[in-house]
């Protein structure tokens, strides 16, 4: 049985599932990276994902157009991002706590709307798998990377884009500046508040895509608490990635591949208790970081600190 695990078929299966599972984490974590680099810890990702997942779902259910659903999810995510910014930037509220509030609100509100508008779970037709011509025919790699729904491709394309924006544009530099040294940024005429609003809107929009990637692409359904903690994991993975988009992606892939691995372990009937198998991604993420984090990583200096103009 254990030897089954090392067959090519299983390896492809693990990698394919890993890539697919990483999608929602990736959107949410990259979005969260923007916010954290600018100095705002948004723990409410999970709540934003839930409400957006619902918004995408209901729009697709009514219009049968997944693109409209995606748009709705992004818009809802951005609105919630702005609300988060209003609370934590303008009103300078404690970021951890307001995030928990947004999470609870999203958890309850999405379910409430679902019960009132849809009543009973329904599966809809969302983004289907799109095989990329030529590339998907490649042996092994074709199946792993090039036979997914459109949002999976988008998630991995997002990584270099995020890297470019954060490292090679003035906008990115400003984001870093307000996260590292808001006072200096302010004295240079960069509006700390405006930058943080912008990053939280981006983060909210991407959390929206993350929610939609569940409700209208991966699962094509909505249900109470459909995200089941993914938003919190995404926040953790930002720390894993040390605020670097590529490392965040590695963290997302590691976490989801180990998750895929444990599902294969159970499916093949390898006698490991299911709970122990399920624990693996969580434990290995920590262990991986123990080895990776030896090099001193400094978090954005102003993270979680509201900016108060000097008096």
């Amino acid at each position, binding site marked *: 049985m254990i030897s089954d695990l090392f067959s090519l078929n299983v390896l492809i299966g693990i990698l394919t599932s890993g890539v697919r599972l990483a999608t929602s984490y990736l959107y949410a974590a990259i979005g969260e990276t923007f916010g954290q680099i600018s100095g705002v810890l948004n723990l409410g990702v999970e709540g934003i994902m839930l409400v957006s997942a619902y918004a995408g779902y209901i729009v697709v259910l009514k219009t049968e157009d997944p693109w409209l659903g995606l748009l709705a999810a992004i818009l809802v995510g951005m609105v919630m991002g702005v609300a988060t910014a209003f609370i934590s930037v303008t009103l300078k509220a404690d970021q951890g706590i307001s995030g928990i509030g947004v999470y609870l609100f999203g958890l309850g509100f999405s379910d409430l709307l679902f019960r009132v508008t849809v009543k009973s779970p329904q599966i809809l037709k969302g983004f289907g798998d799109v095989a990329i011509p030529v590339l998907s025919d490649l042996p092994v790699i074709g199946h792993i990377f090039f036979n997914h729904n459109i949002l999976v491709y988008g998630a991995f394309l997002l990584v270099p884009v995020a890297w470019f924006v954060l490292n090679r544009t003035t906008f990115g530099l400003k984001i870093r500046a307000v996260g590292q040294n808001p006072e200096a940024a302010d004295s240079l005429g960069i509006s700390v508040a405006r930058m943080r609003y912008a990053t939280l809107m981006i983060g909210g929009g991407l959390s929206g895509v993350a929610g939609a990637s569940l409700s209208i692409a991966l*699962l094509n*359904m909505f*249900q109470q608490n459909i*995200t089941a903690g993914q938003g919190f994991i995404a926040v953790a993975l930002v720390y894993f990635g040390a605020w670097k988009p590529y490392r965040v992606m590695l963290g997302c892939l590691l976490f989801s591949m180990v998750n895929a691995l444990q*599902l294969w372990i159970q499916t*093949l009937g390898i006698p490991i208790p*299911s709970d122990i198998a399920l624990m693996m991604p969580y434990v290995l993420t920590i262990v991986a970081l123990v080895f990776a984090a030896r090099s001193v990583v400094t978090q954005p200096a102003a993270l979680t600190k509201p900016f108060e103009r000097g008096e």
Partner: protein
Amino acid sequence: MKRLLFVLALIAIIATIAACAPAPTPAPTAAPPTKAPEVKPTEAPKPTAVPPTAAPKPTDAPKPTDAPKPTEAPKPTVAPTAAAAAKPFRVAVIMPSAKNDLAFSQSMVDALTKVQTELGKDKFEFAYTDGLGNVPDAAAAIRDYAGKGFDLVIAHGSQYGASLADIAPDFPKTAFAWGTAADTFASKGVKNINAYTVQSDQGGYVEGVIAAKLSKSGSVGAIGPVPAGDGNLTILGFEAGAKATNPNIKVAKTFTNDFNNAALMSQAAQTMIAAGADVLTGTSQAVVGAISVAKDKNVLWFGNQSAQTSLANKVVVANQVYDWSPFIKQMIDNTKAGKLGGEVMIGTLKNKVLVIDYNKDYALPADVKKLADDTVQGLIDGKIQTGVK
């Protein structure tokens, strides 16, 4: 620093002992029967005579002895007299998941709705609280409903039993029910708890038999949240049925340790399909995620607990539906006749609490249907045993 920590710990312990030392009076958790009538309805709406105190301080609160006397207790509907018939029979149900979960909780809501349709809305009412995964919250809900004078309070979740055993003696005129379970706590002297459960391995067995016949790859899969409860029974029954039909069949089993994680269930389904399974089943509300995958990949699905055909009528072959309505009606009759508890009801194919609900849109080959019917009959007659404990 260490010394101070130690001192702190010591203080904590002393404080603990001071605060938590056992009460001087013996206070066993199962309320002593002799005291039972004195216990007032907790949280119950008090008679209007009691003035609502504006600033409730614990010290000013009425002592237990000031409680309204049992004879005046505001429970209008419990007496099993002819007069009671004029009032609707009121049922309250407490459920662990959402009432529209297309699974365990919904099976009870559907049954209550069915009974209501049969008896009429003026004769039968029900209230519910769903999503009560937390047991103390559920216990508060049970107390509250009992105090509000509901005739029958159903604790629809095996985790609620221990709390129910504590609560029921405080409301000797209310009937309670607990499921899925087979213990009415009669051995502890509790007289007003009914228990209901299902031998869901039977339905799982039938599904397994059909699955083995329909599987072309010789590999099937079952997904559950935790290896326990009626879901585990179903999955083991499914495995037994499949193996009895085709000894060489591979039955993959995966548990996600989460009743809500639809994403993980969907990945479990993806994994099984990638491993060659072409017929799947599963339990809990999170299977909707797996059904979505089955629908997408055109892999057959067997539903459990509630009818799941509406989700994917091309791939759902059949469902094992829990139809609790016979039990509800029996408890109504019992309660009206003054028998508030002590009934253990086990749902089987025989008493039609377990129903194999075929999807009319799925063209099941006639020989397989025949085999399935024979299996059902065999399980009813006892000629077939699932072998699941």
